[in-house]
């Protein structure tokens, strides 16, 4: 029996709202990664988060017997990946921040940034599959996580991602000027007496929170796309920094809306469809030089 568009949207309203929120917030973080020439972080860090989530499953039997999972039994936690959201989020955050701080620390020692991030991605990617093999939920869950099959997102995930990405957007709005200043001209910010290290740390925390929450809820594929592609699409059309941020968010939300349409119309995975539409948004940028 065919179901109408309205029924589909109603059925998957939590997932679609979560994706739209990510479409709004992730490109804002992507803008700062792009301008600081660290866009590859937007690919490597979600892979760390994914490895963290899968590692959480490997550890889950031990954790359930030694620490406990609250009211949830091990069987429930393994059969419903959304049952212990905070547990998964904690592992995603642990691996994301671990990877982020390792990259920042290694960056201060000099050397090739691209080589470092590429190596980090390769390691995290391999770790994800190794942990997937070791985990009680097996390879199918890893495949689902990486593909971005997000339609099972429930109200708790929606609440979590809304709160966390809401905090990220609010922090960017409140500290916008200082974050841009510190990124654009660090030395001038030091001379002005700005707390440069604090703002750089804040930016790293915002990146980590976005990646951890986004990966856990939506999967790394959609997150790659929403962090990296909308800023690239918006940059040639942006005549000021404000407009760059706003346009990047608009491209992100449009990618989600378009991806939902493609996914529902042709029964494609939603995450990959969002990324495909975000990639199509790059085409106009090819014809504009700024």
């Amino acid at each position, binding site marked *: 029996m065919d179901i109408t568009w309205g029924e589909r949207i109603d059925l998957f309203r939590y997932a679609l709202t979560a994706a739209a929120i990510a479409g709004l917030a992730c490109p804002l973080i992507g803008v700062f990664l792009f301008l600081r020439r660290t866009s590859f972080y937007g690919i490597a860090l979600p892979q760390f988060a994914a490895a963290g989530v899968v590692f959480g499953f490997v550890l889950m039997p031990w954790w359930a017997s030694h620490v406990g999972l609250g009211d949830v039994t091990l069987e429930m936690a393994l059969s419903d990946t959304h049952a212990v959201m905070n547990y998964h989020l904690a592992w995603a955050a642990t691996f994301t921040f671990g990877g982020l701080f390792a990259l920042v620390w290694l960056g201060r020692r000099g050397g090739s940034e691209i080589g470092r991030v590429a190596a980090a991605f390769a390691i995290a990617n391999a770790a994800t599959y190794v942990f997937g093999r070791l985990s009680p939920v097996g390879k199918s869950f890893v495949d689902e996580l990486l593909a971005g099959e997000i339609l099972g997102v429930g109200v708790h995930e929606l609440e979590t991602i809304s709160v966390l990405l809401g905090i990220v957007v609010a922090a960017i709005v409140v500290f916008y000027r200082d974050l841009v200043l510190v990124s*654009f001209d660090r030395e001038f910010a030091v001379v*002005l007496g700005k707390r440069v290290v604090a703002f750089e740390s804040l930016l790293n925390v915002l990146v980590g929170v976005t990646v951890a929450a986004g990966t856990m809820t939506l999967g790394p594929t959609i997150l790659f796309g929403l962090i990296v592609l909308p800023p690239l699409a918006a940059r040639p059309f942006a005549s000021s920094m404000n407009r760059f941020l706003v346009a990047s968010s608009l491209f992100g939300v449009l990618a989600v809306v378009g991806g939902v349409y493609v996914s529902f119309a042709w029964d494609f995975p939603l995450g990959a469809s969002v990324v495909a539409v975000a990639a199509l948004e790059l085409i106009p940028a090819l014809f504009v030089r700024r």
Partner: protein
Amino acid sequence: MALIRIRGASFGYSRRAVVAGVDLEIRAGRFFGIVGPNGAGKTTLFRGILGLLKPLGGTVERSGATIGYVPQRESLDPLYPLTVQEVVEMGAYRRLSGWRSLTHADREAARTVLARVGLAEKESARFSSLSGGQRQRALIARALLTKPNVLLLDEPTSGVDRAAQARILELLRGLHREGLAILLVSHHLALVRQAVDEVLWVSGGAVRHGDPRELLRPDQLDELFDTHGAPEDD
């Protein structure tokens, strides 16, 4: 009046001093130029005066100074789609914190300094689209918006054509005549010779301090460069 007072200071990296025994007073209304051979420590001394490097020894007092800093424009990434106005307004960020927005007076002050450096009509242009000389003047405007009593410039005429160099020099002389203390680091000896009141000659880890007409005399320069490569001159 001393705006910046340095006593027996040494500056360097990883506890290794690049310049040592620096005694210097940056006084109100004076124009200083830091010159010397490549790799002698001009930038190290400049960063020490600016406060970007902590002294390894000695003392640096800046309590009387409100510093306006003009970095080398090459250090700023053209990837940022900032307008000239957005860059210049950064000069007003010193006293703004968090969500507090720029006031009408701040925006007017930004327009005034842009007009002062001859870029009033470039307000809405992308900073990265400006010529080298124009970008340098925009950065001077940004520094002026901080309402400094001493302006520190890092190689302000590097990589710009002669016309742009002359315009920047004219602008700096005008600011100096208005009473602003200026300190610039430059490898353009001709520019320094024309403009400054006092020269800081950095060489062999030491700083010599003197009158440009004396210290930058051709025969004196021959002696100074005897064991070092000569900086660019024009």
